[in-house]
């Protein structure tokens, strides 16, 4: 990333759609300093790397999983300190094989978020340095945040 270059939301949008014409779709929602997009499972890591290296998104705020019953989603909130933009990337992954590339190698701050998402949803982050149970005791066998997990039973 070049120093002291700031981009507006529109510039970021155009740069991303130039680099990833097929994989990334922007949502119509528009709010100041926010960017909403959906990305492909396969191109997520490259998208994040592009955003970090070229566009100055240097802070991973949140990685959260969502169980949509027919599919899983991973939602990334990635913000930029220089541009003051927060991007929301929604990635769909199949429910029977929940695997996605880890972004911990890019942002160390995503480490525990991904661990927690694994802990709660059972989503496997490939390339994560230490994907173990974080909040729950290691001997738990269920993933509590999945919608089909009946918490009353445990």
């Amino acid at each position, binding site marked *: 990333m070049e120093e002291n270059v700031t981009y507006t939301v529109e510039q970021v949008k155009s740069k991303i759609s130039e680099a990833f014409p097929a994989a990334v779709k922007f949502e119509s929602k528009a709010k100041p300093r926010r960017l909403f997009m959906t990305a492909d499972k396969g191109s997520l890591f490259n998208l994040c790397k592009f955003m970090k290296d070229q566009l100055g998104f240097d802070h991973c705020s949140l990685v959260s999983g969502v169980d949509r019953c027919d599919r899983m989603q991973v939602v990334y909130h990635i913000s930029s300190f220089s541009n003051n933009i927060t991007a929301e990337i929604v990635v769909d992954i199949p429910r029977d094989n929940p695997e996605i590339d880890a972004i911990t190698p890019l942002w160390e701050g995503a480490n525990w978020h991904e661990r927690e998402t694994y802990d709660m949803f059972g989503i496997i982050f490939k390339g994560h340095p230490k994907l173990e149970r974080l909040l*729950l*005791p290691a001997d738990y066998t269920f993933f*509590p945040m999945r919608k089909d997990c009946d*918490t*009353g039973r*445990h």
Partner: protein
Amino acid sequence: MDLSTYPHAIAMSAKEFVDWSTNVMDDIVKATGVKRALDKVSDPLMNWGVRNSMYPLHFGIACCALEMAACSGPRYDNERLGLVFRSSPRQCDVLLVNGWVTKKLRPSLRRLYEEMPEPKWVIAMGECAISGGPWYDSYNVVQGVDTFIPVDVYIPGCPPRPEALIDGFLRLHQKIKKSKIGTFMDD
């Protein structure tokens, strides 16, 4: 003295002798009424001592831990009552459970309780420790600390105010006052 109740009185080992002499002393003290006289002095004295120097365990779990800290602050100042928070369970008398107990914590809390020397008391502070509180439908919260350790005093509130905590300790005073903590020998 009737030696027939101690059939090995003639040839006994050192341990047996200790037991035997303890029993004899016990019998004498009880029969002559010395025990009652001693208890009359020692019971109120010991009881007063125990009541006025209760050391709670310095163990903050959740919200109520801040009120515990506020209780030792200048406005409430629990040291007036001789309450000093100690960090080692070996030196404590009161286990103050001030927050929800999760399944991951339960073994540790049980162990802390076991590490404390007798006589010891447990105060459940706040709704979470009493019954699970707002987390009544959680998969990871133990519904009440009294499911695995005996609790003496419950302080309701979410979180209880520091005055309520001090009141809880004073209620524990009343409970100790009723117990026979300072009697010299077990009846």
